[in-house]
């Protein structure tokens, strides 16, 4: 510790420390943002490799490459790693980099907490991944870990899974507290709530969602722990418990969690579209209200994941109607984006390409979501590949495209270098084709009756599974290109101006590129 204090005394300009210690001990929001983003990318590749195992096994009917037990471990870890290791930390990384610069603050409000919330993550995922090497294998009950498959019938590694989820939850809660305190207390003079950039708004709402539901997840896994090791019967019917209770608790966390993974994307896409349409965002206020209503509705729709558990008719009707309502604010957002493009002056740099694809493909994911909300039809769709197609459409060309768009959009600010535009576009088109070839046919094989989480399938699904696998490998391989483009940009490239993009607005574009280690030590004035 003393060395940190000393360096504060010695170094007048507060430049970063040297070597590994810079990253271990850093309390700088930009460094921590970078750490989060690289961590997330590493997890994206690991989770992606697992997806490749899954798709390779599904290339043809029959068991070829892995055994069903290992297949189940892959699909479980793929889900957990992508949700908690790739998408969420990427958004936290973007929040770290951007929120202080967007609100004109010198750093996050709680820098040491910030360091802790990042450094918990490698341990959480280290524990989770180590379960692959344990006797009985890694968790194999799906990322939704329904009891009693995840309690009485789980492999011994489930205990490590539970602790790993606890640590991830603690990290998320700390990160969210930090975001809220920063936004509430450290905005530059003159920046009212309704003048905040939409990415900041989206993260404020997301952070509240996280604080509300992460403890619920912690509660669920603690009850599992009690059932497994301390003889309780929360979820064990034989002991008077209730397996459906688990699902209610899980989805009370899980549905807001889904929006935690998309709200920051709404913020990002809004910025990118207005920049490249060179036109002020249409309907700023309705964007904010739409995000707030989506967030509030997310607490009253959880049971639409459970239409087949045998709820009473009144509950099914309520959750169906409430779920359908979400289409209204979501529609408003899409209409606003389209209206922003209308009569704009549009150019098609890589971030804009990803943003346009986001609008189209996320909307397709929204449509299939609307279809899934219709209970009688859901009886046919539920737990088939139709659902797999639906949530991958909102998560991959939704959340993940928005993260890639954000990286291309802000990387000149982060590194001071422009990325290679031609390679960026190539990466976009490969990803775009890959994602659609992978997931579009899954709508049909789902409708035609292929259940999800199956390591093997009936012969009529063979052709489209093969196509889907080909698409998945194309998508997977094109992410190596992404890694290459990012590394190349970090190492050099055409120098970026402070403004970077002609149409960019916002405080982060008023500082040098690359952004100095410390920005806004004196708050700017916002009119």
């Amino acid at each position, binding site marked *: 510790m003393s060395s940190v204090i000393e360096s504060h005394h010695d170094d007048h300009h507060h430049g970063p420390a040297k070597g590994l210690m810079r990253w271990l001990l850093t309390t700088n929001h930009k460094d921590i943002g970078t750490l989060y983003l690289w961590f997330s990318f590493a997890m994206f590749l690991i989770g992606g490799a697992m997806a490749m195992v899954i798709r390779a096994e599904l290339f043809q*009917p*029959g068991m070829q490459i892995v055994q*069903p*037990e290992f297949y189940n471990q892959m699909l479980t870890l793929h889900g957990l790693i992508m949700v908690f290791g790739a998408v969420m930390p990427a958004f936290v990384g973007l929040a770290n980099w951007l929120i202080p610069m967007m609100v004109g603050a010198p750093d996050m409000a709680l820098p040491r907490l910030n360091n802790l919330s990042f450094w918990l993550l490698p341990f959480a995922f280290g524990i989770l991944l180590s379960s692959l090497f344990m006797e*009985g294998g890694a968790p194999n009950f799906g990322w939704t870990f329904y009891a*009693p*498959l995840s309690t*009485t*019938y789980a*492999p011994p590694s489930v205990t490590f899974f539970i602790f790993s989820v606890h640590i991830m939850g603690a990290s998320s809660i700390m990160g969210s507290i930090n975001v809220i305190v920063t936004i509430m207390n450290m905005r530059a003079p003159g920046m009212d709530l309704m003048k905040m950039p939409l990415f900041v708004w989206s993260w404020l709402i997301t952070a509240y969602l996280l604080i509300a539901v992460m403890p619920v997840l912690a509660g669920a896994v603690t009850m599992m722990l009690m059932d497994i090791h301390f003889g309780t019967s929360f979820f064990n*019917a*034989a002991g008077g418990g209730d*397996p459906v209770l688990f699902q209610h608790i899980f989805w009370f966390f899980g549905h807001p969690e889904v929006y935690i993974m998309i709200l920051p994307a709404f913020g990002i896409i809004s910025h990118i579209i207005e920049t490249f*349409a*060179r036109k*002020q965002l*249409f*309907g700023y206020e*309705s964007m904010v209200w739409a995000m707030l209503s989506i967030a509030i509705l997310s607490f009253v729709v959880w049971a639409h994941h459970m239409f*087949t*558990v*045998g709820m009473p*008719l009144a509950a*099914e*009707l309520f959750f169906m109607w409430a779920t*359908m309502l979400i*289409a*209204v604010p979501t*529609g*408003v957002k*899409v*209409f606003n984006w*389209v209206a922003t*493009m*209308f*009569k*704009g*002056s*549009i*150019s098609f740099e890589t971030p804009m390409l990803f943003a346009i694809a986001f609008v189209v493909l996320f909307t397709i994911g929204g*449509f299939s979501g609307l279809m899934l909300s*219709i*209970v*009688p*039809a859901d*009886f*046919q769709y539920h*737990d088939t590949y139709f659902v797999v197609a639906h949530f991958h459409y909102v998560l991959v060309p939704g959340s993940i495209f928005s993260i890639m768009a954000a990286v291309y959009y802000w990387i000149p600010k982060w590194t001071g270098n422009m990325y290679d535009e031609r390679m960026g576009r190539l990466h976009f088109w490969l990803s775009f084709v890959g994602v659609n070839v992978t997931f579009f046919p899954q709508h*049909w094989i789902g*409708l035609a*009756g292929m*259940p*999800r*989480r*199956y390591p*093997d*399938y*009936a*012969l009529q699904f063979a052709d489209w599974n093969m*196509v889907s696998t080909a698409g998945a490998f194309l998508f997977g391989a094109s992410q190596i290109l992404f890694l290459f483009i990012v590394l190349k940009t970090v190492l050099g490239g055409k120098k970026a101006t402070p403004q970077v993009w002609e149409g960019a607005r916002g405080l982060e574009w008023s500082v040098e590129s690359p952004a100095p280690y410390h920005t806004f030590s004196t708050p700017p004035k916002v009119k």
Partner: protein
Amino acid sequence: MFKRFNILSKSAYSALLMLLLYPSEVLSDWDALNMREGVTQVSRDVFELHMLIFYICVAIGAVVFSVMFYSLFRYTKKRNPNPSTFHESTKLEVAWTVVPFLILIAMAVPASKTLTEIYDDEEGEINIQVVGYQWKWEYKYLEDDINFFSNLSTDQDEIYNLVPKGENYLLEVDEPLIIPVDTRVRFLITANDVIHSWWVPDFAIKQDAIPGFINTAWTRAEETGIYRGNCTELCGKNHGFMPVVVKVVEKDEYNDWVLAKKEEAIKLAELTEKEWSLAELTERGEGVYQKNCVACHQMNGEGLPPIFPALAGSDIVMFDKNRNVEILMEGVQGAAMQSFANQLSEVDMAAVITYTRQAWGNAENGDGEYVVPSDIVEYKKPKI
């Protein structure tokens, strides 16, 4: 109105998919890529609902995306160097909040109606209890006192690509559920171990089978035939290998089948009385083992430790006959081993225990004791 809509919808759907998608010669049968209409009133209602929402989504998508792509084409930097500055319009924003809301109501009305229709748990003319097990289904005909298990009948060699796969690969069972046509059948669905889900697409029934709960579903099949479905809730390693097969037959045929099943039960009772030799028991036991035990304990008896322990060389299987019987009859609390008391007849129970105590060198290394059907009958007698 729905009838006409229906015929139209099929060809239009196909055409739309053709337009949207990748050209390839494998796409000959487009109907195979849509939801099945099924053979009940409910399943047809559900199908129509599905097509209705699908078309509404397509229509909305067409409008929104054409405005968007028009903008992308017409208002590029080159064609429109000076962007407009408008950024709000209360009228427009109210309109695109209210109109979608009205469309949603138009969807919610028929959906709620169909759902209410489905949610009718009046008793059926025939009532069948469906029980999910890892990894098979049990069907109990409550009126006729018939019950049996339905296991995947696809050969392991087909799954592991050693022989060509049959037409109904992974969708075939040793004994299907049999119900009569044009008869209201109610299913009472539950599970014995983890959560399963019983799905028959052609009846539009998908209902979770949950331990400790009994869910109901009903159907009235209008056409005879064989209808195939799956387990649709992840239930462990062989989740993908426990299909549902329902055979709908004429009423007469159904009645004959019921009689035959009852006679079979009487014959089985006679078998229990019979004196069994060790060789006979071992031979029968091997078949029972292959059907019920290999999924976990494996063909070679090595199991998949630590969750599924080995039987080869197990102390209990070699030396402790009483505990051996007890485990099969009661299951093991807190572990994956379930009770087989209701799944196997006394004969099969004795046979399979005997087989495991004889196979893999267990007889040579252990006490070699074996179990006869009367031992199981004895075990089942109430103990005072």
